[in-house]
């Protein structure tokens, strides 16, 4: 089903992305550029699944879709070692404080991807039990639509996040 819609992100190898020629004026800027580049090359997502979307997240990591092509294969079970939280699934009212605590325990800089309709908006479950979008409790950087999103959808969301980091947009700054 749905995917996040920027077809420009998945570029052919060797294609100019337009960022390589960034004119760097100060040393500070240069260092920031290098740091952002590094962050996108080795992101450690938090090993943490909630519901159905987590199965698609596992499929994304497994052999067929092979998330390690994007330097993302190391999932950390401890929030202290992770810098990306993929909220894969519906967040219940009982789980919400736990998600918040996990987010607080992650070290800066950190990013959040809301994977799936439930995490983004509550999805089909507009009822008493489900948090209507995880952005009620934590800031979200990228929303991936679909119920569940196809692995390609998640990958595109991740690439979108990489682009966001390279551009230097701060976590949660859009809110």
């Amino acid at each position, binding site marked *: 089903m749905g995917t996040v819609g920027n077809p420009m992100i998945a570029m052919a190898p060797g294609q100019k992305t337009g960022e390589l020629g960034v004119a760097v004026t100060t040393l500070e800027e240069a260092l920031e550029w290098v740091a952002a580049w590094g962050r996108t090359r080795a992101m450690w997502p938090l090993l943490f699944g909630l*519901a159905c979307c987590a199965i698609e997240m596992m499929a994304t990591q*497994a*052999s*067929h879709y092979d998330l390690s092509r994007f330097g993302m294969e190391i999932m950390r079970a401890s929030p202290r070692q992770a810098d990306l939280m993929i909220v894969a*699934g519906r967040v219940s*009212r009982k789980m919400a*404080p736990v998600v918040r605590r996990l987010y607080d325990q992650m070290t800066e800089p950190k990013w959040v991807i809301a994977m799936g309709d439930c995490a983004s908006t509550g999805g089909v479950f507009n009822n*008493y*039990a*489900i948090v209507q979008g995880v952005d009620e409790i934590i800031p979200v950087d990228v929303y991936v639509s679909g119920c569940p999103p196809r692995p390609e959808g998640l990958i595109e969301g991740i690439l979108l996040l990489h682009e966001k980091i390279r551009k230097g947009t701060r976590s949660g700054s859009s809110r």
Partner: protein
Amino acid sequence: MAIREGEVQEFTLEQLKHLVSERALRGETILLNMGPQHPSTHGVLRLLVELDGETIVSVVPDIGYLHTGIEKHCEHRTYTKIIPLTDRIDYLSPMSNNLAYVMAVEKLMGVEVPLRAQYIRVILTELQRIASHLVWLGTHALDIAAMSVFLYCFREREMILDIFEMVSGQRMMVSYFRVGGLWRDVPEGFEEAVRAFLKLMPARINEYERLLKKNPLWLRRTKGVGVISPEDAIAWGVTGPSLRGSGVNYDVRKAQPYSSYDHFEFDVPLGENGDVYDRFMVRIEEMRQSLRIIDQALRRLPKGPYITPDRKVTPPPKEELAWSMEALIHHFKFWTEGFSPPPGEVYHAVESPRGEFGVYINSDGSPRPRRVHFRAPSFVNLQALPIMAKGSLVADLVAIIGSIDIVLGEVDR
């Protein structure tokens, strides 16, 4: 205990009084929290483990972290619109959930399902069983540190998901079955795709088995671990492979055949010792039996309609809308209002990959059910965890959780 929003729920000693041993209250044993975010609890299960050194004294599961309110949600959906909700209960086997639900409604309304639809339902639910067991095997092996099995299992699972996508347009949340039959007939190329899968799979199952069955590490981690006796298993209402691992021959497909399962020949694999290893072997063997069923159903797949002609539960065919005013009105009424089963109650169970998945519907004669309840096998099987885990080492807990094959979406619903 009420949960206040914004707070992680903590236990007080008072609440734990009859759940853990007296020694824990005196502080002689350790109380350890496991989950809800833990790589091996298969979702958001939280366990409170009482340890004496490394030995488990008691385990207290704390569930509800994925409570979705699906049963309540069903009460204000029409009968057709509940089908997508059933997908999301046990998200590893949407086909079985769909089947249990539509068959319950069919029972309530006395609808006959064409044979072709029944056979296709059998093929798809058996494919679903294999897909679900593959996820189970992959994650279970991953928990006991066998990484490659996970990669192999997910490779084969993709083939099944491709078939599902072919028939329903979705990889996981299929919502393909309808009251009275199917959403549409299977597309061209379906039979070839299933045949290709049937051809490839037996060798692959042998491969998984070879990878693990003679592996000394695997044997030491699974043999004699997490034992449950047949008596205990029955007493706690355990069903599915977890029950059959203890040697109890109960399979809903054989005990109360539905959807023409009695037309096919298959065996019910049984274990002997009721340990983690036997449950593992039962599931591996079940995959082979599923292949057998699919093969028979595919070879004997009859031609004919894929959904009942009963206009009470099926919308009129699209072509008719162009020339028939009545059909147009009926179409409109069907999708806005839905259909109304007679008042009464019904229970129907199917053998899902995890055990007896049952649906109870209470109808008051309106287009929406008064009450829907799902008998979730994971929820019931989870009760047996404290018994299986008692007395074993803390490291074995992970193997035991994996061997019951719970899906938290189903436990909490």
